[in-house]
């Protein structure tokens, strides 16, 4: 699956969609890491995510860890209800920076 990537105000925005499970999380991971390799700050839009399993969350965790090492911004944006429940259950909502909208994320600092 190829997830759409856009750019706005110096941020790369990757929009994950549908079911980010064991089948699709490798694609998500690859694209997240590719964006981070370009030394860009990255926002991951989760508004269209219907389901995310632990492998999908692991892709986000890896992105988060890599960004932290490289001192890049990594944040989640517009997290859908389904994704938010998973993050909250695992207390990962306290780990990732999470913003309601792209503008909120971009104007933050």
């Amino acid at each position, binding site marked *: 699956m190829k997830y759409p990537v856009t750019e706005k105000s110096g941020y790369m925005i990757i929009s994950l969609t549908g079911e980010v499970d064991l089948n699709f999380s490798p694609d998500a991971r690859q694209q997240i890491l590719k964006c981070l390799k370009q030394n860009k700050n990255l926002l991951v839009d989760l508004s269209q995510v219907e389901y995310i399993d*632990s492998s999908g*969350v*692991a892709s*986000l*965790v890896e*992105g988060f*860890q890599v960004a932290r090492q490289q001192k890049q911004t990594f944040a989640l944006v517009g997290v859908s209800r389904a994704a938010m429940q998973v993050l909250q*259950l695992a207390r990962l909502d306290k*780990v990732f920076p999470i913003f309601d909208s792209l503008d909120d994320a971009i104007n933050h600092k």
Partner: protein
Amino acid sequence: MSYINLDDRIHASNIPDIPDLARGFLQLHAHNILDRPALEALQKQYPDFIARMLAVFNSDHFNLTTKVASIEEAIHLAGFERVCRLMLCLVVHRSFSNIRIRGVDQEAFWVDSLRRAVSARMIGELIGLDASLCFTAGFLQDVGFLLLFLLSPNKGMLWTEFRKREPDARYSMERNIFNMNHDQAMELFCQQWNLHDVMAKPVLAHHRCEKYDAPELDKQLCKVLHCADWMAAVYVAVDKNFVINRCRQILAETFEMERFRTEELLAAIPDEITLTASVLGIPVKEHTKFSQVLLEANIKLSEDNLNFQELTLRLEQALDERDRLAAELNKELGLAREIQRSLLPQDMGAGFPLTGINISARDLSGDFYDYFTLPDGRIYFNLGDVSGKGVNAALLMAKTSSLFRCLGKRIDHPGELLAQINIELCETSIHGMFVTMIAGIYDPETGLLKLVNAGNPPALLFSPHGLAREIEAAAPPLGVLEDSKFPEISLSLGDNSLYMFSDGVTEGYTENGQTLGLSGLFKAIATMPEQMTPQQRIANIVKRIRHDDQSPLRDDVTILLLQK
């Protein structure tokens, strides 16, 4: 890619002009009048050519009742049509033989044309079509092929490639290379020579017979030419076996020709050529016999058979190899499963406060649980779930449970223990994999319990009256953030039961296809009869999401129950 462009089509200046002799003849033929003075004039103007024609008429081949001394006599005996056709064959051959076309072996081309011509004539005789018409059309049917090379001299090096292909392949290759087929080139030629009234249409259609809408005789001729094309190819194309089979098939389908008859026709081609070529004065260097063709075809066939046998053998070998590797892999997986089982604790039997179960969705599990008693009698326990599934999850599971067992013997505060494991996992984190874990330490003497939940679904504390407390995650999973804090909570177990589980339980499907969910789990636990043993309680929960032993699980399922 360069191809014949429109200018070339219009001027077609490279195409030899129609000789006056032929033009004159065709005009006479068109008016169908025996214009004696005009004939005599032609005879005077082209004495050599006319002598050659008369020699042909007087050969055994034509089998005329008496020898002829003039064209007029020939017309009288053989008919205007036949004379005109013979003239056309000779004139076209002579006109092209006089020019050099780069890359093209004209001698070979005209022998190929003779093969088509004699093949067409033989079929014509068998099906009762005018044999001389068939011969001439067969002789001229592929002149367009010469023209393609004449109009695109830079493609000369492809001549041999073209020649060794069978008719259909050659036809589509023409389109690719010249952007034009030989029948289209032939049409240019017919325009330039004004041949449209003379058998042009069936000739132009011989690759599209099935779509050719014309009077029955023309249709028949078109089919004859199509067959003749394939018969001639038997002697020239590389894949002889294929072409022979195709010939048998086409002739059977088109003219209901029996197989032996087709072979007789094919075998007759060389002798027919030798005879006809000498009559027409066309040089023939190639003398391939049909027996030789069959030999080559058989060699090819046996080579193909050998290749096929080899292919089958290789395929069998590959399948064997696959089975062997699969068996090996299964053996390895079996071993891994065994080792993983050994990482789970023994059932300590009645009286021990902890009971657990771990069922994996695949061969290997990413879930685990463990418990062990410290020297002072307190019991350490944990339940964990590695993100993802399969071998990588199983390896991280092994690492984490080993760290727990090893460090747990020295660190008796579960919060601190998880913090240490977390640092280890963060340092060696790979692919963002993480581990959710509930861990605790329980003192059977006092009933006191210290508990940490790192990213795991809540632990459920049930009193005999129902749900007493949900202990939700107070920290993120292990392996995410190295400086995470893992706060402990303390409580007294008393008569309560503490249910710990991985998300495979709440996300498992119930019999009606819905996920069990937290509320489903609450309900399941709350409605269990009081006298049930811990094992029965766990089995009861599992039964809700696994309806029989064979049904696949959506995710690994792990449950750990703590009660006095």
